[in-house]
C-alpha cells in the first residue's frame, strides 16, 4: 500500500469517526426533544402503559388544546417569566458589560482577584444558598415579587456574563481605544461608541444565555414565589398533582414554553456562534 492510499484511508477513517461521534451527540441531544414532541401528541392512556404505546394512529392534539383552553393561567406565567427573564437579561448585560470592561481595561486594583471571587460564588450549590436567600428576601418583603426573583437570578447570571464579556473585551486591540482617546472620546464614550458596537456577538451570546437561564429556572422560583409571580416552569410543574399527573398536558405546556427560547436561538444563532467562538480565541 503506497503512502497516498494509506493517507486517504486515514482521512476517511478520521472523517467517519467524526461524523459518527457527531451523530451520537445529535441523537443524545435531540432524543429528549423528540420524546417531548411525541409525548405531547399521545393520549394519557398511551403514556401510562408500559412500554408506552407509540402508535401514530393515537396521535391527538387534545393535550395542546387542553393547555390552550386553560390558557389564562399559562399566559400569566408567561408574562411573569418574560418580565423576570427580560429584566434579568437587561440588568445582567448592563452591569456585566460595565464591570467586565472596568476589570479588563481600567486597571481596577485587584480586578483579577475580584473576577475569581465572582467565579467562586458559583461553586455553592443552590440548596446551600436558598435558606439565607429566603430569609433575606422575606425581610426585604421581596418574596413572590418580580424584583426578588430578578435579584436572585442576577446572582448566578451576572458572573457568567462578566466572564464571557471580559474575555472578549480583553481581545479587542487596545490601540482602538487609544485611537478613540486621541480622537477626544472619554472612557464612557469609548465604551459606548467603540467597544459596545464591536461587542454585539458576545453581548448576544451572553444575553441569550442570561435569558434562557432565567426563563428555565425552577428551584429558586418554586421556593421564592407563592401565587403572584409564578413563572412558566412552576406552572408546568403544577400539572403534576397529588393523585394524578397529567403527563400529556404537562409536556404540551413545556413544549409551548420552549418556543420563545427556540425562536430566540434561531434568530440570533449567527451572533451566538460568533460570540462564543470569538471569546474563545483571544486576538
Amino acid at each position, binding site marked *: 500500500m503506497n503512502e497516498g492510499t494509506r493517507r486517504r484511508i486515514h482521512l476517511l477513517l478520521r472523517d467517519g469517526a467524526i461524523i459518527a461521534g457527531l451523530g451520537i451527540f445529535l441523537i443524545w441531544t435531540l432524543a429528549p426533544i423528540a420524546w417531548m414532541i411525541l409525548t405531547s401528541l399521545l393520549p394519557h392512556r398511551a403514556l401510562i402503559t408500559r412500554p408506552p404505546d407509540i402508535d401514530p394512529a393515537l396521535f391527538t392534539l387534545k393535550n395542546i388544546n387542553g393547555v390552550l383552553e386553560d390558557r389564562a393561567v399559562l399566559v400569566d406565567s408567561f408574562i411573569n417569566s418574560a418580565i423576570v427573564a427580560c429584566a434579568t437579561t437587561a440588568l445582567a448585560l448592563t452591569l456585566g458589560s460595565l464591570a467586565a470592561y472596568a476589570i479588563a481595561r481600567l486597571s481596577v486594583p485587584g480586578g483579577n482577584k475580584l473576577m475569581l471571587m465572582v467565579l467562586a460564588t458559583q461553586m455553592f450549590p443552590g440548596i446551600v444558598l436558598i435558606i439565607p436567600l429566603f430569609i433575606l428576601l422575606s425581610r426585604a418583603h421581596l418574596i413572590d415579587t418580580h424584583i426578588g426573583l430578578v435579584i436572585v437570578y442576577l446572582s448566578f447570571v451576572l458572573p457568567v456574563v462578566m466572564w464571557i464579556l471580559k474575555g472578549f473585551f480583553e481581545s479587542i*486591540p487596545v*490601540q*482602538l481605544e*487609544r485611537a*478613540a*482617546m486621541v480622537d477626544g472620546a472619554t472612557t464612557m*464614550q469609548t465604551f459606548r*461608541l467603540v467597544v459596545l458596537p464591536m461587542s454585539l456577538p458576545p453581548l448576544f451570546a451572553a444575553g441569550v444565555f442570561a435569558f434562557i437561564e432565567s426563563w428555565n429556572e425552577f428551584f429558586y422560583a418554586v421556593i421564592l414565589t407563592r401565587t403572584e409571580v409564578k413563572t412558566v416552569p412552576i406552572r408546568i410543574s403544577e400539572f403534576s398533582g397529588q393523585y394524578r399527573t397529567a403527563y400529556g398536558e404537562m409536556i404540551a405546556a413545556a413544549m409551548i414554553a420552549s418556543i420563545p427560547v427556540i425562536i430566540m436561538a434561531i434568530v440570533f444563532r449567527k451572533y451566538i456562534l460568533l460570540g462564543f467562538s470569538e471569546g474563545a480565541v483571544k486576538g
Partner: protein
Amino acid sequence: MTRIELIDIVKTFGGVNACDGVDLLIEEREFVTLLGPSGCGKSTTLNLIAGLDDVTSGTILMNGKRVNELSPYQRDVAMVFQQYALYPHMTVAENIGFTLRLRKRPKSEIRERVQRVAELLELTALLDRLPRELSGGQQQRVAIGRAVIREPGVFLFDEPFSNLDAALRIRMRSEVRQLHDRLGVTSVFVTHDQEEAMSISDRIAVMRLGKVEQFGTPEEIYSTPVSKYVAQFVGSPRMNILDGELLRSGKQTDFRFGPIVIPLGAQAATIGAIDGNRIELGIRSEHVRIGDSGLPAMVRFVQPIGPETHVTVGWNDTAQTLIARVPGIVRLQPGAQVDVVLDPASMLFFDPETGNRIAGA
C-alpha cells in the same frame, strides 16, 4: 504648529525604565523621527508625547506650556497607529469624522470636512466602505485621514508603514512627508527602519536603552555618528568595523588588525591616548574601493543587488572582513585576489570599551 520639549523624561514599567532620561527639543513644523530597535523606548516616548501614558518623572512642554496632565485631545495631537486602529464597525466616512462627531459638530460640517479630507487622500470612492473591505494601504490612508481632519498641531506616527509591502511603504513615505509640508504641522515619527528615517526626516533621534544616543540631521547621523551603535544602526550595509590596535612610531600612525597593517592619514593624529592602544576602525562600504593597488585581500562573498554589488573581502589569518560597495554588477568569484583601498579621510575611530567615537570625520 507646535514646539515640543521633553525634559528628562522617565517612564517606568514594572521597575524597568522604558524611557530613562529623554531630552528632546522638536521645533515647530519639524519632522523628527525616533529611530531604534525594538525595546529602545521609541514608542513609549511617542505615547508619552501623545498623552496615552503618563510620565513617571520629567516634563513635557508644548509651545512652552506644561502638558503632563493633559489628555491627548487637549494636547491637540493626532496619531496614526501601527495597526491602523480603524473602528471596524464604522464606514470610512464615519471613521474619519468620528472626532468631529464627538465634538458634536453639525452633520453638514462633518460631511463637508470628511469630503475635503477624502479628496486630499484620494479616498472619495471608498467613503461608504467598512475597513475590512479595504487594502492595507487604503486602511493606512483612512488612519491618516482621521488624523488630518482634526487639523492638529502635532502628528504622531507609530511605525505606520510596517504592515505595508515595500513598494507601498516607499510611496507612503513621500506622501506623508508631502502632507506634513503642506499642512505645516510638527510631526514625530517612530520607526525601526533606518532607511525610512533617513528619507523622511528633518532630524533623527537614535534611541538606545531608553535614552537618546544621538539627535541630529540625517547627514550628521550618517557621517558623524557619536558611537559605534549609531554608526552600525544607520546605513545599509552596516558600517564595517575592524577591531585592532594603533601603532605609533614618530609621526606615522598605523592601524593593525591580525597581520594586516593599514597606514592612517592625518586625522589619526587627533586620536588621544587610549588604553593599551586597542581601537576600532569604522568605515562605510562606499569608502572601501576595489582597485589595482592597495591592500591585498581575498573575495569571500559577492552580492549583486542591481545598481551596485556588495563585495565581502577577507584575509587568511583573520576572521575579520570588509564589505566594499562597487557600482554596477561586478563579476568576481569567491577566492579571487583583489586590492582594496580604504579612504583615510572617511575613517572613524571608536573606543572599544565605551563604543564612543574618539576621532574621524
